[in-house]
C-alpha cells in the first residue's frame, strides 16, 4: 500500500481538501530536491546534509500517509551516511517508492 488512505483522509479533513492539493504540489516540487540533497550529501561525504534530507523526506512522507516511503527514509536517516556509502544504490528503493507515491498522490489529491 503506497498511501495510507485513512491518514490521507484525516489530513484532508483537518487541513481542507483544497489545501491538500496545494500541499501535495509542494511535496512533489520539494521531494526531488531532497533526493538531490541526499545524493550530493553522499558524494560530498556530508553526513549532516544527508541526514537532514532523509529526515525531511521521512517527515513529509508521514504527513501524507506514505508509510512505505517514510520507513525507507527513516532507515536512511538512522543508519546514516556510512551505511549508505557501503550499499550499492542505497537510494534506489526510496526513489522507486517515491515514484509510486507521486503517482498515487496525483491520483487521489
Amino acid at each position, binding site marked *: 500500500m503506497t498511501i495510507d488512505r485513512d491518514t490521507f483522509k484525516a489530513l484532508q479533513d483537518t*487541513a481542507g481538501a483544497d489545501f491538500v492539493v496545494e*500541499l501535495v504540489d*509542494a*511535496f512533489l516540487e*520539494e521531494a526531488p530536491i531532497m533526493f538531490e540533497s541526499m545524493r550530493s550529501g553522499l558524494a560530498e561525504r556530508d553526513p549532516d546534509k544527508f541526514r537532514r534530507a532523509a529526515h525531511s523526506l521521512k517527515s*513529509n512522507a508521514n504527513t501524507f500517509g506514505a508509510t512505505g516511503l517514510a520507513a525507507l527514509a527513516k532507515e536512511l536517516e538512522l543508519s546514516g551516511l556510512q551505511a549508505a556509502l557501503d550499499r550499492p544504490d542505497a537510494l534506489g528503493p526510496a526513489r522507486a517508492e517515491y515514484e509510486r507515491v507521486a503517482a498515487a498522490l496525483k491520483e487521489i489529491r
Partner: protein
Amino acid sequence: MTTQPASRRPARLLVVDDNKVNRLLMARGLQQQGHNTATAENGRVALEMLRQEEFDMVLLDMEMPEMDGFQVLEQLVKDTKLRDLPVIVTSSLEGIENVVRCIELGAEDFLTKPVNPVLLKARIGASLEKKRLRDMQKELVRRFATSEVAQDLAQSGFALGGHHIRASVMFSDIRGFTQMVESQPPDETIDLLNTYYTLMFDAISGCGGVVNQMVGDGLMAIFGAPLPLPDPAGSAVAAAREMIEMVELFNAERTSLGKSTIRIGIGIATGEVVAGYTGTNERATYTCVGDTVNLAARLESHTKEALRPVLLDGATREGLPADAGVDPLGEVQLKGKAGPVRVFALKV
C-alpha cells in the same frame, strides 16, 4: 507601534521552516485557529521580515540552511526591539542539551516535531497572552515615562538608587502665569498649557534633553541622563534658544487672536548630578538631585531680577564655544547659595 491591544485583532505569527510542506501545514493550522501568518524558509529571511514587519510570535524550526534556529535566537536576544518577541521552537532535534540551549537563548518553549496540535494551540495561547500583558506594560511605561527612561529601563532594568552623572539641568517657567490664570477661563489655561508644553517638549527632546518634571507652568529637563550626550551644555543651550523662538512664534499667533502673550524664564546649570530612580518599589520616578539641580532652579528664578530670559552658570558657559553669544553678569549672590556664583546671560 502596536496601537491596538493584541486581544482585539488576530495575532500575526511568523512560521520559519526550510521544509515547504511543514511550513504550509503549520501556517494552515494557525490560520484555522484564527491567526494571521507569514512564512520564511530560513533564518536569514526570517530576521529580515522580523526587522521590517510587526509580529506577535515566531514558530522556529532549528535545522535550516543559510542561518539556523540557534543563530536566529542569538540575533533576537541582541536586538532590543525583538528580544521580547515570543519564540516557540518546533524541532525534531533530539537531546535535552538542544532544548536547554534554546531556552537559555530566550525561547518560550520547545515542541518536538511532529508537533501535537492541541499542545501547540495551548502554548500559543499562553505566549500571546503573556506578550499582550508585556505590551500593555510597555505602553504604560512609554506613556508615563520619557522614551529615554523607557529605554534605560528596558536595557538596565529597574532598581532604586542613583549614580553620579555629568549633566546639564534646565528649569523653565512662564512669567506671571498665576495672574494669567486668574484673568482667563480655565479651559483657556489648560489649552495654553498643553500648547506650551507641546512646543517646549519638542524643543527639548529635539536637542536630546529629557523633560522629567512638570509642575504647573514649570518644567525641569535633563541633558545627558539617563542616556549620555556628547555635549550636554551645548544641547541645553540650543534647546533654550529654540524654546525662546517657539514662544515668540506662539506669541505672534496669540497676538493675532487678540490674546495676551507669555514670557518664559530659563535657568541652566551643568555639573555632577545624582541621577536614578527614587521613590519606592511600587511608585518611583526618574530624577536628578544635587547642587547642580538646585543651582539651575535658582538661576531660573533669578531671571526675574536679571531681566534676561536665559541664565547660565559658569560650568555651562565653559561648555560653550567662545563666540556663543553670552554676556557675563558677574558674580551674583543667589538665594540658598553659600557664596556668590558666576552668572551668564544668553543673548537671544
